[in-house]
């Protein structure tokens, strides 16, 4: 069996499961945010259950339109607050403690290897980087699971992606996953689990692995997953709030497709409007003028991402024709960035630094685009209207390319700054 099948079997109380089977499985953690929880709360009320199955296993993170951007958003956030109090939820993260959910929960040790996690947010697939099965579902799924502690799943087929060779300078997890999505398309892994492996993945730090699994959904994947190793254990030790189990795929595990990529050939990439699969080398886009750069999100808002951006900015200034917005994904990331002097580098460069929020990534607040404007963002989606006006454009890149773009005022590479 694959690691995915083993985790699902264990949670369904079965010895084995095979792709295509429908199973009912126990969930270790259920997650919702200020956009999706209000519907889940409403539907939970209709089910007639009085209490959630376990107040230690339901996490509410108001991060999308929080800090509350307007009255309606404030009312949605209040629903989460009141429900959390009423139900005694242990994992409610008020503004001040909250961060972007998929950065926050692994960082705080609330997701551990071997877990089965569902979240009413499509980027829940991020936690596969820890060797967990995690997938996005809808609000009604969350409502039902809050009541029963279980969820129904179709066991997915698995696709294997093997990354070999070595990574060039300024190439990271973001470029690997963009390259992959560019190869298979936005529905290339539809309904499937994407298992990432190979020497490049084994050498990749946890931040890059989280970025890769985060964007599995952008290829239509049900989940992304990486078999845990020493890097995973080093990350989890000292954080894990629960006991964990390390699963791996059997040598004779079955895959519907196996793809191999020579990473030595992969250069910094950009996904152009309006699909994450519309991938081109950043160097080919040097004449693309940009109005705004956003560095942050569940994809690339971790400390490693801010370090990379700060290294490129150095003592330089943001181009006067452009706005740069930096959003540390969690309070811990923010504090660490302060300690390391990264925030000072950004402010001295005339960038703005925000409190953690999903904000502009989904066109919520904190940097919305006007008609005709273009942004380079380290986020995950570049759909029509994603960051604002339906006639605005989003280009997706890694933090180094985004930072170089901020200095140059057009899409560019750190190499152009002599780095």
């Amino acid at each position, binding site marked *: 069996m694959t690691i995915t099948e083993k985790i699902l079997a264990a949670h369904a109380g079965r010895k084995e499961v095979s792709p295509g089977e429908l199973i009912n499985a126990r969930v270790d953690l259920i997650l919702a945010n200020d956009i999706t929880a209000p519907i889940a709360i409403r539907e939970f009320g209709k089910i007639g259950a009085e209490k959630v199955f376990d107040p230690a296993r339901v996490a509410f993170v108001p991060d999308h*339109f929080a800090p509350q951007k307007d009255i309606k958003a404030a009312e949605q956030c209040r629903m989460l607050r009141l429900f959390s109090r009423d139900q005694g939820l242990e994992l409610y993260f008020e503004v001040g403690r909250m961060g972007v959910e998929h950065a926050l929960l692994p960082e705080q040790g609330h997701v551990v290897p071997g877990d089965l996690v569902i979240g009413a947010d499509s980027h829940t697939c991020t936690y596969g980087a820890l060797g967990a099965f995690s997938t996005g579902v809808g609000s009604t799924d969350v409502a*039902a699971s809050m009541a029963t502690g279980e969820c129904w799943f179709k066991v997915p087929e698995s696709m294997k992606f093997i990354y070999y060779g070595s990574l060039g300078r300024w190439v990271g997890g973001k470029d690997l996953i963009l390259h992959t999505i560019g190869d298979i398309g936005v*529905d290339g892994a539809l309904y499937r689990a994407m298992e990432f492996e190979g020497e490049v993945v084994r050498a990749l730090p946890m931040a890059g692995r989280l970025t890769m699994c985060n964007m599995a959904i952008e290829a*239509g994947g049900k989940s992304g997953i990486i078999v845990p190793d020493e890097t995973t254990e080093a990350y989890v030790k000292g954080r894990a709030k629960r006991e964990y189990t390390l699963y791996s795929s059997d040598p004779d595990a079955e895959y519907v497709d196996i793809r191999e990529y020579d990473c030595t050939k992969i250069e910094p990439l950009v996904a152009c409007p309006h699909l994450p699969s519309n991938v081109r080398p950043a160097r080919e886009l040097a004449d693309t003028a940009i109005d705004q750069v956003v560095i942050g999100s569940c994809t690339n808002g971790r400390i490693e991402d801010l370090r990379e951006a700060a290294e490129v900015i150095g003592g330089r200034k943001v181009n006067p024709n452009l706005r740069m917005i930096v959003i540390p994904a969690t309070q811990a990331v923010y504090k660490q960035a302060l300690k390391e002097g990264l925030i000072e580098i950004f402010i001295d460069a005339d960038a703005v630094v925000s409190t953690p929020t999903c904000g502009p990534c989904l*066109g919520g607040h904190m940097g919305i685009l006007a008609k005709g404007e273009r942004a380079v963002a380290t986020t995950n*989606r570049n*759909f029509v209207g994603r960051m604002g006006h339906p006639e605005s454009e989003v280009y997706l890149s890694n933090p180094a390319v985004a930072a170089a773009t901020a200095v140059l005022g057009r899409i560019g590479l750190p190499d152009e700054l002599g780095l």
Partner: protein
Amino acid sequence: MLIRGRTWRFGSDIDTDAIIPARYLNTSDPVELAKHVMEDADPEFPGKVKSGDIIVADKNFGCGSSREHAPIAIKAAGIQAVVAKSFARIFYRNAFNIGLPIFESPEASEKIQEGDEIEIDADSGLIRNLTRNEEYRARPIPPFMQELIKAGGLVEWTRRKIETA
């Protein structure tokens, strides 16, 4: 159950941001959401669509965000069903969970033109194009999903399950 209505055509990879842009997600009120349904795919759509209409799209309909607001907006706008070559996974799940009938049919997706009048037999999966006098087959709905539909959605299914436990 027979579903009959006039069709509206959409292309491939219609994402949930196009179905209901995030700028309207500070509410989950179905009536409010319906006012903006498909707005970023076709700004005039909310004004054109009539109760009882059917959406027909190409592959990967509903990709992107997990927002249940997307099928809710479609349903609240009076759209009876969505037919597509394929659906993104979370949208597929959400549609069944909230009781929006959806049908996977590559053949119907290729042949139906905007404005065609179609009739879907939800039980057999037979799609009849009344305008062109053609018939297409939708992929069979897995038994568990049929059970969900019969129960009236996941909430009702779960409520009964808890009651009988």
